[in-house]
């Protein structure tokens, strides 16, 4: 009986058809995005009356004076930021593993990950610029400055502030990835085995855990590398301008009023894809060469390495990084409520709600739009993920293609890919609608939600569900009341992550919204260069605040709801008992 019901529940042709349809639905934008980038790169775009293939865009790209400078800057900042982020995150784990510090840092990761990178970048500009908080904190008593100095500390030509911003944002992500992957290696046991052979912990981390860990975190590292090479919003806020990184240069070309520029930009976008591919290959080659030479050291029997200072410095730098992140977030509300803040005062001399009151109508509008897009795209992503994961649990061969395709939006450079999709949106007359914005947000939210839900959903003990079907005789009811209810905490976490990812999207909103649909992120980035710190502070504060609140809510709600439900149940029970007690 149970078996029959259970089979009926899982052999749903609807689920199978849905899974196939969703895979195709994911494939469509990827093909369109790639075709819309690659074809114009070879001079083919019927919408602009270019019907013949040719190499003109490439000639024009190679003739662009800023090409080499921006590629060099992209490669240096992207590779350097990824390398530093990895070193800092690994060093921190190696030095502080299984200490109380690590557990506190682990708890602080979720809120930092939830905050959009543009908000942190804006905070960093407020913090690190010549008239920023750090110089104010040190002036005039240490620096002697009565006026802001003239040197450049953000948007510097070498991209150092960009590297710092990328490191601040990416290190917590890599730390999260490392901490999630470590249990597979049983590090505690490896450390004990190493210690029993006379190896101090840091040597075990260096010789044993690092080489075993790398294959587990290779893919997230490549995502970080691809992101660092292609990020636009963060670079617009804190990166150099002339030349800027290649992605930002392409962004300017794509949005140029001269539509012929689009062809050059498309050729550039294809080149950017090649740069990502070559950088990933170079990264892997570097790792292989490193391992080739390092292998000789694994078995040299030496119990001490000279990596101690390296690891400890890395760990301290991580903590310094987090200090910068924290101060960057703290300075946002300070600017939001500032009325007068002269240099070199440490804090504003006058506070005011005037600016926020002035901006209230636009802030409410932007916040509502941001929340609506984030909530809807996260819910759609959760629904798609649940369908695909349920199908994967029943028959993983059906979802193999989906599993491969899901990572593509994270690896492809948004700047070319999205402009390719835009051509399709314009053709189908949906560009500038909420539907188009939601579609693009879902495309980027879905991978994060799906990957977050995968392991907990697939490892769910299916016997609970079988038992529930046995009792309720309703697969659907059992699914919602038992399976999803038991997976409530991870569903909430996935939802919060989805909201955070959606809040951070700049290019998808800008391209699909066509300026008619704006979010806090698009406005904050657009205003970042305006110099109106109070206005930008308000935008960035709210941009950081909402994902943070939803993350906190996601942590608190599932447990509190269960607690509340139990209290309610016991109260009702007591009430019912009182009613049934005989009157003496």
């Amino acid at each position, binding site marked *: 009986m149970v078996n029959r019901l259970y089979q009926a529940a899982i052999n749903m042709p609807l689920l199978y058809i849905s899974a196939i349809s969703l895979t195709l639905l994911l494939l469509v934008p990827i093909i369109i995005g790639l075709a819309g980038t690659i074809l114009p790169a070879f001079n083919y775009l019927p919408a602009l009356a270019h019907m013949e293939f040719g190499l003109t865009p490439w000639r024009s790209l190679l003739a662009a004076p800023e090409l080499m400078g921006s590629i060099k800057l992209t490669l240096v900042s992207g590779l350097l930021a990824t390398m530093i982020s990895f070193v800092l995150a690994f060093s921190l784990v190696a030095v502080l593993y299984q200490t109380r510090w690590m557990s506190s840092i682990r708890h602080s990761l979720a809120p930092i990950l939830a905050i959009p990178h543009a908000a942190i970048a804006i905070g960093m500009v407020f913090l690190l610029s010549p008239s920023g908080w750090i110089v104010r904190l040190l002036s005039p008593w240490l620096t002697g400055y009565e006026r802001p100095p003239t040197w450049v500390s953000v948007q510097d030509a070498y991209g150092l502030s960009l590297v710092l911003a990328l490191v601040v944002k990416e290190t917590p992500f890599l730390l999260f990835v490392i901490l999630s992957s470590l249990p597979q290696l*049983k590090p505690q046991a490896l450390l004990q085995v190493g210690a*029993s052979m*006379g190896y101090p912990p840091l040597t075990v981390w260096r010789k044993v855990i690092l080489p075993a860990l790398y294959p587990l975190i290779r893919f997230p590292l490549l995502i970080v590398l691809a992101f660092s090479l292609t990020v636009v919003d963060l670079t617009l806020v804190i990166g150099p301008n002339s030349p800027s990184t290649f992605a930002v240069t392409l962004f300017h070309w794509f949005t140029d009023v001269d539509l012929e520029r689009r062809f050059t930009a498309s050729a550039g976008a294809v080149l950017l894809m090649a740069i990502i591919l070559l950088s990933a290959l170079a990264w892997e080659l570097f790792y292989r060469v490193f391992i080739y030479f390092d292998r000789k050291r694994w078995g040299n*029997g*030496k*119990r001490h390495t000279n990596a101690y200072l390296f690891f400890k410095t890395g760990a301290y730098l991580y903590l310094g990084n987090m200090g910068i992140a924290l101060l960057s977030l703290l300075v946002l509300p300070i600017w939001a409520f500032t009325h007068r803040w002269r240099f070199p005062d440490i804090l504003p001399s006058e506070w005011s709600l005037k600016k926020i009151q002035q901006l209230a109508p636009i802030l409410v509008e932007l916040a509502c739009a941001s929340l609506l897009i984030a909530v809807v795209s996260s819910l759609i992503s959760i629904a798609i993920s649940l369908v695909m994961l349920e199908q994967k649990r029943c028959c993983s061969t059906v979802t193999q293609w989906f599993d491969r395709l899901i990572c593509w939006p994270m690896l492809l450079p948004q700047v070319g890919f999205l402009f390719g999709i835009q051509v399709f949106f314009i053709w189908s007359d949906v560009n500038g609608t909420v539907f188009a914005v939601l579609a693009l947000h879902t495309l980027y939210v879905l991978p994060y939600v799906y990957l977050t839900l995968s392991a907990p959903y697939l490892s769910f003990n299916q016997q609970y569900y079988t038992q529930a079907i046995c009792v309720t005789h309703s697969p659907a009811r059992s699914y919602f009341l038992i399976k999803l209810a038991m997976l409530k905490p991870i569903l909430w976490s996935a939802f919060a992550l989805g909201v955070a990812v959606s809040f951070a999207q700049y290019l998808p909103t800008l391209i699909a919204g066509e300026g008619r649909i704006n979010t806090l992120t698009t406005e904050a980035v657009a205003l970042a260069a305006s110099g109106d710190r109070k206005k930008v502070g308000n935008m960035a504060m709210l941009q950081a605040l909402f994902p943070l609140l939803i993350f906190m809510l996601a942590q608190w709600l599932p447990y509190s709801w269960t607690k509340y439900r139990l209290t309610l149940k016991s109260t009702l029970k007591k009430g019912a008992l009182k009613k049934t007690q005989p009157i003496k």
Partner: protein
Amino acid sequence: MRTPLLDLKRCQIKINSTVLLDDFSFHVNNGEVLSIMGPSGCGKSTLLGYLSGTLSHDFIATGQIELDGKPIQQLNTIKRKVGILYQSPLLFPHMTNLENLLFATPSNKNTSHKERVEMAMGKLNELGLETKAHELPEVLSGGQQARIALLRALLAEPQYLLLDEPFSKLDPELRQSVRSFTLEQIQKANIPTVLVTHDMEDAQAMQSKIITLQTQN
């Protein structure tokens, strides 16, 4: 009579207010195995943690551990020179079988790299695994991995050996041969060994003294 080399005196281990072990003592001679048996939760593995210096700070442990008459309970795991084997062989997956053995072989000024390699290869020869020297541990069977893990632990020249149910994951037919190999190696190394096990056959096959722990109420 041989000198008692590993000596535990009046050991007490507590967690919160629960006493796991109280006034517990034993001694083990060179080349001898002591088996500690008992139900789950009686403190067998916790005792190994105390003996190896890896006990979690949540536990409060008192009592003297002496090695060759010298107290060692204040020393950390590295300084105790203790060999540990767990249920899982924990061969490092990214290193070849030879590299796993070389990792354990101490280096000093008098030994060249070539000599260390010869020593490790000699151990692989003993197992008939010299052809697998440059392959990863994943190609080995469970029994072969268990043997290499034991040799790796012994190559580090420990002064005593702790075995935490090392045979429990092996198939019954493999288990007997790995037990015999382990006993042979322990006697060859001539060091005191403490074995924690659920299985009486393990304890008997290792020709060991047996102490059975009870759950403290």
